[in-house]
């Protein structure tokens, strides 16, 4: 069973992702929500998380800062991260991959693309 943390300042996008996760036939124990990077760090400090799905452009703490914090912390840098963003710059995507990001999906995403990426990461 996997615990997933969804990080996006849009409550609607978090709900859409949660619904997609529920349909993906991946065994899930918990789905946590955070509206920015800081809320995500707080959850990561207090809960077991198997996967982080994060937006980049968010108030308070961006997805870039969250990814940087996770990359630098030994207790967090093995957690796979999928970025789900409108950002389309190849340079930026390369930068994120260098920071350990395992998957990148562009908004608007399809449920199928989310499922495919999840299955690649969880190996199912």
């Amino acid at each position, binding site marked *: 069973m996997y615990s997933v943390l969804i990080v996006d300042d849009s409550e609607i996008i978090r709900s859409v992702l949660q619904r997609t996760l529920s349909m993906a036939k991946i065994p899930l124990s918990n789905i946590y929500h955070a509206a920015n990077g800081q809320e995500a760090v707080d959850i990561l400090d207090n809960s077991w998380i198997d996967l982080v799905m994060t937006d980049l452009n968010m108030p308070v703490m961006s997805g870039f800062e969250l990814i940087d914090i996770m990359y630098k912390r030994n207790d967090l840098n093995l957690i796979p991260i999928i970025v789900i963003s409108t950002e389309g710059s190849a*340079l930026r995507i390369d930068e994120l991959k260098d920071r350990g990001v395992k998957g990148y999906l562009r908004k*608007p995403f399809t449920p199928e693309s989310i499922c495919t990426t999840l299955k690649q990461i969880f190996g199912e």
Partner: protein
Amino acid sequence: MDNEEVKNLLCDITVSVLESAAFLFVDEEKMAPYSINEIDFRGARIQFSGFKDGRVFLWMTEETADDAARNMLGLDDDYEVNEKQRDDVLMEILNMIIGNLLTAMFGENVIFKLSIPEKINNEETPESFPDTTVFLSIDEHPLLISIEL
């Protein structure tokens, strides 16, 4: 890229985002410009900086925002969308449009910094729109998208 090319690209991307993200289908015939005073719009804007600086604006009616929110959330037609959800869907659609637009206009090898989308108050909605404004219609409700470079 001249204004007409920018508008065509903006139109294509807006139509594509509305269809794929919110299952909203834009009427083929584009609406002519009309008086802003006739319509009660909800607006949002986002700024970008980096390779080029500018702003993109999106205005839609409450009915369109409600339909988009219900469609994205997979809810029934009688679900009452709240104010927060209306603003959320407006800003998220704008966010998707600008991300895809900047890549289409300037390619994948440049980096832009995007601001957090913000709501525009009714008083800030201009009486006339810039030349790079696209006028669209969804179920007879107008939708406007505009870029300032």
